C-alpha cells in the first residue's frame, strides 16, 4: 500500500516481506519440498496478506499445492487453523505474524503434536518471543529475518558491545533496524548537495549503494527500499539462533 502511494520520500529500512518470503519459501522447498504441498498461517493484516500473496504466487509459479489460513491480531486459540493446515499434510508450514501470536503458534503446534518443518517471519528470533516458549517447542523451527546478532561480524560485534554498554542489554532486531535506518538518513545528509533542500537529501538517499549498516549492506532501489539481505536461521534446543543461510537481495 505504501509503495502504491508513489511517495518519493518513502524509504523502508526493513527488508521487504515479498523478497524475504520468496527467498525463505525457496529455501524451505529445497530442504523439505518432497510432495510439493505448502501450508501457511498468516496474520490477516496488510503485511501478513502481502507475505501470503508472495508464497501463494511462488507456489503457483513452481506448480506447488498451497493452502493457507489466516488469524487476527490478538487471537489466542489457533488450534482450528493449525488442525486444518495439518490435515492438508504440507511438507512445511510458513508463518507470518507479530510477536504475541508467534509464541502462540509455536506453543500450539507443539501441543497439537505437529512436527512439520516450520518457518516464521522475523518475530520468531526475537528475544521476547524466545522467552515465551519452552525450548523443546521452538527447537528446530526456522526463521526468515534480516538481522541476527552475529558477533563474528566485527561491525555487528562493535554495535552490540556499544549498545550493551549504553543500555545494559543485547540489542534485538528493532534496535538494529532503527539504528540502520538512522545511518541511512545520516548518509543521505552527508552526501546531499544541499542539506537545506529536502529533494536533494531524498535524491542522495536514493543513491545509497553498498552502505554498511548494522542490519546489512544497504542498496536503495527506485522505490525507496533499502535492500540488504535475508537470513534463514534455525533455533536450536537451547534457543540459540543459528544461521543456516544468508542471501543478498
Amino acid at each position, binding site marked *: 500500500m505504501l509503495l502504491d502511494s508513489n511517495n518519493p520520500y518513502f524509504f523502508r529500512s526493513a527488508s521487504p516481506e515479498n523478497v524475504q518470503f520468496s527467498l525463505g519459501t525457496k529455501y524451505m522447498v529445497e530442504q523439505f519440498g518432497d510432495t510439493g504441498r505448502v501450508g501457511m498461517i498468516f496474520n*490477516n493484516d496488510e503485511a501478513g496478506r502481502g507475505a501470503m500473496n508472495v508464497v501463494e504466487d511462488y507456489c503457483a509459479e513452481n506448480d506447488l499445492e498451497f493452502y493457507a*489460513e*489466516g*488469524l*487476527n491480531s*490478538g*487471537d*489466542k*486459540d*489457533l*488450534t*482450528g*487453523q493449525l*488442525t*486444518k493446515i495439518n490435515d492438508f499434510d504440507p511438507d512445511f508450514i510458513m508463518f507470518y505474524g507479530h*510477536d*504475541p501470536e508467534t*509464541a*502462540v503458534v509455536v*506453543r500450539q503446534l*507443539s*501441543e*497439537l*503434536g505437529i512436527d512439520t518443518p516450520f518457518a516464521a517471519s522475523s518475530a520468531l528470533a526475537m528475544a*521476547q518471543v524466545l*522467552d*515465551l*516458549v*519452552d525450548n523443546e*517447542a521452538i527447537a528446530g523451527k526456522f526463521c526468515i529475518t534480516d538481522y541476527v546478532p552475529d558477533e563474528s561480524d566485527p561491525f555487528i560485534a562493535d554495535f552490540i558491545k556499544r549498545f550493551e554498554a549504553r543500555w545494559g542489554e543485547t540489542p534485538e532486531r528493532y534496535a538494529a533496524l532503527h539504528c540502520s535506518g538512522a545511518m541511512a538518513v545520516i548518509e543521505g545528509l552527508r552526501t546531499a548537495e544541499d542539506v537545506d533542500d529536502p529533494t536533494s537529501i531524498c535524491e542522495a538517499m536514493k543513491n545509497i549503494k553498498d552502505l554498511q549498516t548494522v542490519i546489512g549492506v544497504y542498496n536503495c532501489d527506485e522505490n525507496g527500499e533499502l535492500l540488504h539481505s535475508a537470513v534463514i536461521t534455525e533455533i536450536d534446543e537451547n534457543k540459540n539462533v543459528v544461521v543456516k543461510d544468508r542471501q543478498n537481495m
Partner: protein
Amino acid sequence: MAQLLINGLAMGFVYALVGIEYTLIWNSTGLLNFSHDKFITFSAYIFAGMYVLSLGLPPALAVIATLITIFLFGVVVALGIFNPLAKMTSNLYAIIGTVILGRIISEIIRLTWGPLPFTVDNFLTGTFSIGPLVIGKAYVYIILSAIVIVVGLQILFKATKVGKAIRCVSQNKTAAALMGINVARNTAFTIGLSAVICSVIGILVIPLFSVEMNMANMIGLKGFTSGVVGGFGYLPGAIVGGLLVGIVESVSVTVLPAVYKDCVSFILLIAFLLFKPNGLLGNKQN
C-alpha cells in the same frame, strides 16, 4: 473433526469458567462486571509477575498466595466500588464504573510490569495423547478446575449457611436484609469469590496465552456470550453455554475460514439475544 471437538471442548471450559464468574456477580449485585477480563489479567500478573518471577515462590505456594490476594482485592473492590454503584439510580453508572475499573487495573499492570508479554517457564506445559488425539495439559487442568468449581459452588449454595444467604440476596435483597442477612458483606464475599474464580482462570491460561495486557479480552467477551447462550444468571446455563460456544466456533472452521471463528461466536450471541433471550436453560432457572 475429533481433534476440533476436543479443541472446542477445551476452550468451552475456559468460556464456561468466565461465564460462571459473570453469573456470580450478576446474581449477587445485579451488575454486569465489564472489568472481569482485567481481573483475570491482573491475577495472571500477580501470580507470574509478582509471586513466581519477582519473589521466587514455588508455583504451588504462588497459587495459594494469588488466590488469597485476589480474594482480598475483590472484597476491597466490592466495598469501595460495586456496593456503592449497585445503589445508584441507573445501572448505567455501574456499567461505566466497571469499565473504568478495568482501565485503572490495566494502567496499574502497565506501569508495574510494562507492556511486554512474559510467561512462567515449564508451567503446566506438555500434552496428553489418546491415539491420534492430543490435548494440552493446561486444558486438562482447566476442565478439572471447572468441575471442582462447579461442584464446590453447588455444595456452597445448597449445603452451607453462607451459600443459602448468597442465594437469598440474589433473589431479593430487601427481603434478605429483613431476614437479618448483611447484604453488603454477603455481596463482598460473593465478589471476592468471583475474583478467586478469575484468578483460577488467569493462572491456568498462562501456558496458553502468556501473560500480557490483552490476554483475557476475547475470553471475557466469549464468557459473556456463554452466559447469554446458556441463560444469564443461571450457573448450569453458563457451563452449557460455554461448552456450546467453544464447540460451535471450533467446528465452524470445517466450513468457514478459521479467521471467522470469533464472528461465529458473536453471531450466536446476537441470534440468542434476538430469538431466545432467556438462553438454552433460562426457563429452568425460573
